[in-house]
């Protein structure tokens, strides 16, 4: 049988040159073995606690096989496309996602249920679906994005889209735990903030790379600080106002903190000037003080952070339970499946699958396991900053750094919040928390990082400033000395 292949398709096929990605393959095998061990450990523990007979089957072999299959499919797609993209990112994300799947299999399946086509799916099945979609997004973005011109050309359009999404949330958002977060369109609901953080980074990378020379050459003096001319300070103030706006209108402290932290870090990366960080921190302190005075939610969070035990069965309940969970875990943990006894038929931490997965891991994997999870995030950050450091131009470099920071800072904010290191704010633990929006947005981030790390990516387009490039016609110019 011969396949009818058009000339166009034949051209595409002829240009495919598979290239082995040995490091990635090796790490993938480690990931598969580790996830299998985790799943077996969970299965054995669950059967022991249920008083069933000894068996060494994984907790849910079907889900594990589907997940690993999808992960390997992504790997094979990158190999077949012959991309020279980073080889560590995909296995690391695969491991984090696998830990997420095991954790969701371990939690009570009734936490989240959804009926589809007459069947009811529990927590782990839904999360598996989102994980598969996220892996697909990573692979497709990594393979499809061959040029960043569409990102850098339309930075103000992106900014407008971001603000539009934000306004949409203000107008039509549903309230979750006192914060306006989700938008409902028909049966689908999503959290636009997750997407806004990616858009924000695209805009900031475009803006900062264009005005970097001016921002670096600070010209105005204010005491010991050297500042750029006032017009170039305005975006900084606008950013600050926007973060404060998110706190005021949306009451979403986590997103505000994340946006502002990523913004400050990017400004510092672009200019290497400590004065901007100082200004930013002063603005942050002022904003926090104002928010503390005006808003009950902010005051609650800070009070809980200072002493959760004052109201241990009320406002401080989740944080107290989170601390207990870490304490129960100790160094080695209780083992997957052996922690979290139900208290009076209820989970001690209601939001364990979204806001407190780090506490769950702390209990069941112990200090050693939690340090390993943080290590995995460090690997992601290291790879991302490496992409940034070897990018050909400022825009690409800032974009890679910003995308990396979005994931890194978010992981820090929620992990530190769970540990009562900083006030708890509701952001997701990237790739581990339950939730589609977060998984897909972070999938876009990792896909873009993979695309940017590819050495075959298109060289940066010429700058836009002063498009009318000087064209000297014969007589209009004198020959030089």
């Amino acid at each position, binding site marked *: 049988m011969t396949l009818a292949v058009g000339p166009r398709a034949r051209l595409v096929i002829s240009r495919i040159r598979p290239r082995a990605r040995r490091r990635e393959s090796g790490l993938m095998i480690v990931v598969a073995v580790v996830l299998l061990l985790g799943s077996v450990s969970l299965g054995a523990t669950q059967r022991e606690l249920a008083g069933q007979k000894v068996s060494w089957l994984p907790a849910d072999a079907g889900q594990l096989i589907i997940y690993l299959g999808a992960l390997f499919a992504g790997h094979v797609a990158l190999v077949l496309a012959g991309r020279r993209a980073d080889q560590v990112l995909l296995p690391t994300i695969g491991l984090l996602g696998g830990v997420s799947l095991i954790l969701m299999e371990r939690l009570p399946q009734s936490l989240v249920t959804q009926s589809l086509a007459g069947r009811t799916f529990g927590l782990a099945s839904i999360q598996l679906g989102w994980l598969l979609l996220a892996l697909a997004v990573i692979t497709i973005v990594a393979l499809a994005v061959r040029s960043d011109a569409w990102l850098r050309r339309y930075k103000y359009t992106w900014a407008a889209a971001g603000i539009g999404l934000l306004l949409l949330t203000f107008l039509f958002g549903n309230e979750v735990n006192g914060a306006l977060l989700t938008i409902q369109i028909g049966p689908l609901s999503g959290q636009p903030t997750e997407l806004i953080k990616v858009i924000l980074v695209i805009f900031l990378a475009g803006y900062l790379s264009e005005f970097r020379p001016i921002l670096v*050459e600070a010209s105005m003096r204010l005491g010991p600080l050297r500042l750029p001319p006032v017009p170039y300070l305005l975006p900084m103030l606008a950013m600050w106002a926007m973060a404060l706006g998110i706190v005021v209108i949306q009451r979403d402290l986590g997103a505000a903190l994340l946006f502002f932290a990523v913004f400050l870090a990017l400004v510092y990366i672009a200019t290497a000037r400590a004065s901007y960080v100082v200004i930013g921190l002063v603005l942050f302190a002022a904003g926090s003080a104002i928010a503390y005075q005006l808003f009950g939610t902010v005051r609650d969070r800070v009070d809980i952070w200072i002493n959760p035990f004052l109201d241990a069965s009320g406002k401080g309940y989740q944080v107290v339970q989170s601390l207990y969970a870490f304490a129960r875990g100790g160094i080695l943990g209780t083992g997957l499946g052996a922690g979290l006894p139900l208290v009076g038929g209820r989970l001690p931490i209601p939001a364990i699958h979204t806001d407190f997965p780090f506490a769950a891991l702390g209990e069941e994997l112990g200090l050693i396991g939690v340090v390993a999870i943080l290590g995995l995030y460090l690997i992601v950050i290291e790879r991302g900053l490496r992409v940034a450091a070897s990018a050909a131009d400022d825009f690409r*470099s800032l974009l890679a750094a910003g995308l990396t920071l979005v994931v890194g800072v978010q992981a820090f904010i929620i992990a530190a919040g769970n540990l009562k290191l900083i006030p708890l704010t509701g952001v997701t633990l990237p790739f581990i928390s339950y939730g589609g929006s977060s998984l897909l947005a972070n999938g876009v981030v990792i896909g873009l990082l993979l695309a940017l790390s590819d050495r075959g990516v298109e060289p940066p387009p010429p700058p836009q400033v*002063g498009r009318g490039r000087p064209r*000297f016609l014969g007589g209009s110019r004198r020959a*030089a000395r």
Partner: protein
Amino acid sequence: MDPYVVAIWIVRIAFLGGLYLFMFGVTRLLLRDLRAAARDPGGALARLVVVGSDVSEPLRGTVFGLDAVATIGRDVNNSIVVEDEFASTEHATLTFRGRAWYVEDLGSTNGTFVNGLRIEGLRAIGYGDELQVGRVRFRFERSRR
């Protein structure tokens, strides 16, 4: 002790160990990359890629590695020699000063252009900017490592 419990603990610890095995593998790759980078002598700070040159030397596609100070001009003593009748003998310099790169026009007859705009004296330049000397256009890039 119940052998089943002991076996479960072995699996649990093997899982934790596996997480560290993964990190160990990644760290080894990182160290290998770092050593390879350290062995590589080409320690250029940045590079200039010729993106447009129709009638003169250097030809399109030529890549120049830059040290902290680089001079551009028609004279053979410049670090980047531009064989173009519209370039001055000593046309411009590119310098790295701690935080940023700067380009300075050395009073050339036909001027130095950054992103199509003629510069006066010293100007900061970012990676990705386009530099024009005579009829030769360069793209200023971060060096690949």
